[in-house]
């Protein structure tokens, strides 16, 4: 065999794979033949018997032999020259990872992908998933929520039997002609802590506070609120909120996967903000449903605008009475939608509220009340 000129030569550490000691060696490669020489070593093998590991950061490169031995070197350049086509995926990753510019581009791309997934993908996926939940499960979820509300914040209703019957009649009128209209049940409660409010519970139970029943100046105004809540029920918003929050958490958990449990705080905030974004979209959807329903039963959407104005005034008066309580209470109301069964809070968080409530209002459940009133007036 003719001696071909030496093409590549480098220093390495040779581990034989049998002992944990190594020898410094000189590796010469020419014409596909590898010559490894150390103090007590003389090895000759085919280049094809060597497999390089993938490049990663400043880490040393390792060439693995079929025999189980290893050659370790910091001569990255030589390995690149010898194996220019190995590990294409890792090589591509390495190329991007080396530059800050690419890393920043990846960051932008990632941000966009996450934003898209959370704002479009998750709600899109939650709709069919919510539809798959069996009716029975939804009902028991609603009952549990009502139990929780009863034990924590509300007392039995103090309305007269006559007024109770009237409100029930309004609900009947609201849902008249809807499929499965008997599932819509009324739960009247006296909840001073919640003010004039209504909630849609999963399954079809609609909770109305005494304050709201007293606030409404006409049955038509009450019908407007009930129609909005029925909209939540029909579109299964409670369930959808629940599913969206869990999906979002799973997604963020995957993204932040190698963080420890402690850093879980980090996605509490985005999830919280998103949850409120999701809720806003659902409120708008429920409003639209309410407008259509009102039209269907022959009630002008002007009544919607009226009751919204009344609610806004009532809540402003309430917060003016006890300014200190406002931030804490607003916060607890907003976070209550983060928890399991998400009752839908009907209280408009007035934007012209006290200074301290401003930040919280920005994240509040409902589209600005004025905007909702405007939509009701413009709806035809």
């Amino acid at each position, binding site marked *: 065999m003719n001696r071909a000129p030496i093409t590549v030569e480098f220093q390495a550490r040779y581990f034989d794979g049998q002992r944990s000691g190594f020898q410094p060696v000189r590796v010469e490669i020419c014409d596909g033949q590898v010559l490894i020489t150390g103090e007590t070593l003389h090895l000759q093998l085919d280049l094809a018997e060597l497999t390089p590991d993938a490049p990663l950061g400043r*880490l040393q490169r390792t060439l693995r032999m079929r025999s189980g031995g290893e050659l370790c070197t910091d001569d990255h350049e030589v390995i690149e020259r010898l194996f220019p086509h190995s590990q294409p995926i890792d090589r591509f990753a390495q190329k991007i990872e080396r530059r800050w510019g690419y890393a920043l581009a*990846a960051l932008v791309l990632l941000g966009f992908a996450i934003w898209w997934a959370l704002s479009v993908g998750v709600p899109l996926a939650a709709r069919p998933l919510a539809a798959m939940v069996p009716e029975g499960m939804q009902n028991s979820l609603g009952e549990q929520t009502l139990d929780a509300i009863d034990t924590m914040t509300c007392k039995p209703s103090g309305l007269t039997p006559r007024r109770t019957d009237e409100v029930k009649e309004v609900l009947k009128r609201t849902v008249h002609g809807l499929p499965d209209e008997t599932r819509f049940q009324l739960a009247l409660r006296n909840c001073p802590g919640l003010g004039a409010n209504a909630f849609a519970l999963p399954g079809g139970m609609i909770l109305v506070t005494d304050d709201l029943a007293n606030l409404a100046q006409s049955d038509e105004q009450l019908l407007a609120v009930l129609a909005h809540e029925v909209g939540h029920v029909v579109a299964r918003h409670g369930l959808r909120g629940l599913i969206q929050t869990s999906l979002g958490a799973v997604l963020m958990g995957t993204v932040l996967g190698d963080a420890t449990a402690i850093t879980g705080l980090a996605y509490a905030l985005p999830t919280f903000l998103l949850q409120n974004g999701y809720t806003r979209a659902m409120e708008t959807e429920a409003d639209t449903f309410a407008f259509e329903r009102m039209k269907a039963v022959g009630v002008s959407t002007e009544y919607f605008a009226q009751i919204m104005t009344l609610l806004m005034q009532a809540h402003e008066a309430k917060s003016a009475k006890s300014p200190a309580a406002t931030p804490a209470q607003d916060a607890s109301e907003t976070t209550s939608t983060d928890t399991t069964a998400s009752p839908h809070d009907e209280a408009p968080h007035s934007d012209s509220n006290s200074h301290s409530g401003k930040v919280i209002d920005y994240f509040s459940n409902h589209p600005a009340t004025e905007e909702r009133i405007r939509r009701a007036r413009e709806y035809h």
Partner: protein
Amino acid sequence: MPADATDGALSAPPGTAAGPSRYPVIFTGQAGEYFRIWIVNLTLTIITLGIYSAWAKVRRRRYFYGNTRIDGEPFEYHGQPRAILKGRLIAVAIIAAGSVTSNVSQIAAVLISILQGIAFPWLIVRSIAFNSRNSSHRGLRFSFNGRWTEQLKIFVVGGLSTIITLGAAYPFMKAQLLRFSFNHHAYGRTAFSLNLNARTLYGIYLKGALLAFGGSFVIVLVSLLVKLAMQSSMGAMKGEARFLAAVLTLGVPAIYLILLSYFAVVTAGLTNATWNALEVGSVRFESTLRAGRLLWIYFTNALGVLVTLGLAIPWASIRSTRYRAECLTLICHGSLADFTALSTPEVSPTGEAIADLLDFDIGL
């Protein structure tokens, strides 16, 4: 590569007649470099709808292994992305099949959950074995030969006694689990030996529990005093409302702090106790983690991650790994070059991949 790694390989080991030699564990990972790897991992994983996650996992692990050095020599991770990807696909298929079947029939659902209960220890054992087999140092592979039935026994007996004793038997089970996972490990043909008894762990958990109870007691006491003070100065109604706001703004972080302290005390205690009770041939370990320092790292990590909306995660990981490495020293009575190999069969990555998918944390 430090100079001492390239020369003197065959010369006498540093620890000669003079006594054992000490080798600090050095971690050379850098936050900036790892940030770029991390962000590229995430982006490619999302763009490829998860397929790249196998490569991401290997690159992440290799980065931490390769930057952990003893006597100048890095650890190496040999897991193959393609194998891991295949394992993950199988895992997804099994889980999907399981959930579809359990939707169809109630009996199937019950059967599947029993199977999953049995599969759990199997998965953990497979996962440990796969990781171990794919880790090496100085050209020698690690291995693990624990049997999943033994793990299952520990889970069943230990789990039941933990429930019956309302948690009092937990350190006992934890000691058994640690002994199980360490004593079945080997470096080359040299078996690990962990001399850890439950009594040591009781001490650690007791310390953690006392801290948590003491902390909660202080919080309750302080809030009662504050409440009384507020009510007497502002009147009952207004005081009540102010108090609620104060509890929400101060009480919640205080509870987090207590949890974090408990976690730091237990982690520092367990890590030190485990390393200090471990022997691998002529090598012993000395771990000197301090709970206070660990708490500080956890706290600032959490704060940093929170403020940067997660972008500081790589920095946080590098920092805590560096501290753990800093606190660990090998004490070698012979030579690090004298370990020898043992040939073991390859381990399929399916078990590990399923464990990974279900997010089991196996902290070895």
